[in-house]
């Protein structure tokens, strides 16, 4: 599973980094960023899906 952030939509709410800190972080400018290549670690799929569902800007996609 892989996660993507649409940076044209991200406004820096930070919900993604709260929900799934193994995949998402807040960059030094305050916007959501993917850690590494966005590959979701085994066992964190539910958290990654929660991050996508809870993003107020619908900026996150997770693909199986």
């Amino acid at each position: 599973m892989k996660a993507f952030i649409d940076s044209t939509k991200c406004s820096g709410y930070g919900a993604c980094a709260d929900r799934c800190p193994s995949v998402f972080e807040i960059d030094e400018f305050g916007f959501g960023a993917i850690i590494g290549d966005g590959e979701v670690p085994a066992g964190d799929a539910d958290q990654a899906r929660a991050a996508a569902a809870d993003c107020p800007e619908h900026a996150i996609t997770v693909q199986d």
Partner: protein
Amino acid sequence: MTSAHAGVYPGLTPRLMIGESASRPLTLDEERAAGTYEPVDPGGVIAELERAGLRGRGGAGFPAHVKWRAVGGGRCVVVGNGEEGEPASGKDRWLLTRRPHAVLDGLLLAAGATGAGRAVLYLSHQETVDAVAAARAELPPEVASRVEVHVVAHRYVAGEESAVCNSVNGGPALPKAKPPRVYEAGVDGLPTLVSNVETLAMAAWIARRGAAAYREHGTPASPGTALVTLRGACARPGVYEVPYGVTVRQLFTACGGTDPAGTPGLLMGGWFGGIAGPGVLDARWCYDHLAAAGSSLGCGSVTLLARDERVADVAAGLARWYAAESAGQCGVCRKGTEAIAGALARVRDAGLAGGAAPPADLAGLERWGTSLRGKGACAFLDGAANLARTAILAGAAAGHPAAGQHHRNPPRERAS
């Protein structure tokens, strides 16, 4: 750039700058005599491009056969990209105004090889729009009507492939987030090949003459010839057809009419590759050697800085351009380009005042040079990151440490 010089590297038999095209547009008769529009078996084209090792000429250098193959096999669209958003490049405008038929021919060939139902030529500069219109008017209507022309306002990001598809689809010429990539869903939601116009013209040359002929010039890893745009402090700035593998110094001595010794630096790959110190003069102008030298070939443009230019001034001017030209869609790009511009301006000012550059700015530039690559919806921020990374290195290499030696030369305004 179209009024600038044009020519062929000494001893080279050109593939694109043929006949009188260095000095005037070719006529349709001259094009036909050169083989343009001659039928080609579309079935073998992609394999021939693979054997030739043709790489895209828009800047990324992606293998052409991979892109062509990725959209084939079903309904798809091909777009010839002649927008040439890179400010330091003029070669696509040269090609479109001097050999518009070669571009149309290449686009039709790409449509045939991929089975595309639509072929679109994407343009912005008025002289290219006029030249293509005149060329289409010379063609039989049933041929001319197979190509659509789409015109956009010129800006850097308008030539990015997702911006191209967005615009052709009726939206703004602005990049979109990936996925999907355009080879998955682009124009009309179909797999779309967006190819630089020089790549298309060269693909047509290869389709008719073969990969072995293409490889007679260049290097094994960077075969063939390419159009290069030389700019800056040289006697004959302009567009030249050159073989891959000559040194950057030879580009300027053989084509640019200037010995580049003594330059403090060069802008590589258009502006996208950042600033290289004079050490790059002895690197071979090809993909692998420039990458090994920490630079890039990009869209094939090289700008020579004058001996009295300061790397820190040029870097600050370019960084300000990036901040102003950012489409502002992505927060990280808006803030990242502003941060780089602010830091490089303070580094410049510190040097002019005879002081040391702020350590926090130097640390920030070094960090952003890596951390901002691959961020944002398109590669625009990568260009600013390349500038941040290379400016410090080039400043030091040129004896103008970005950390700020005192220089009496006044800052120079750079035209964009």
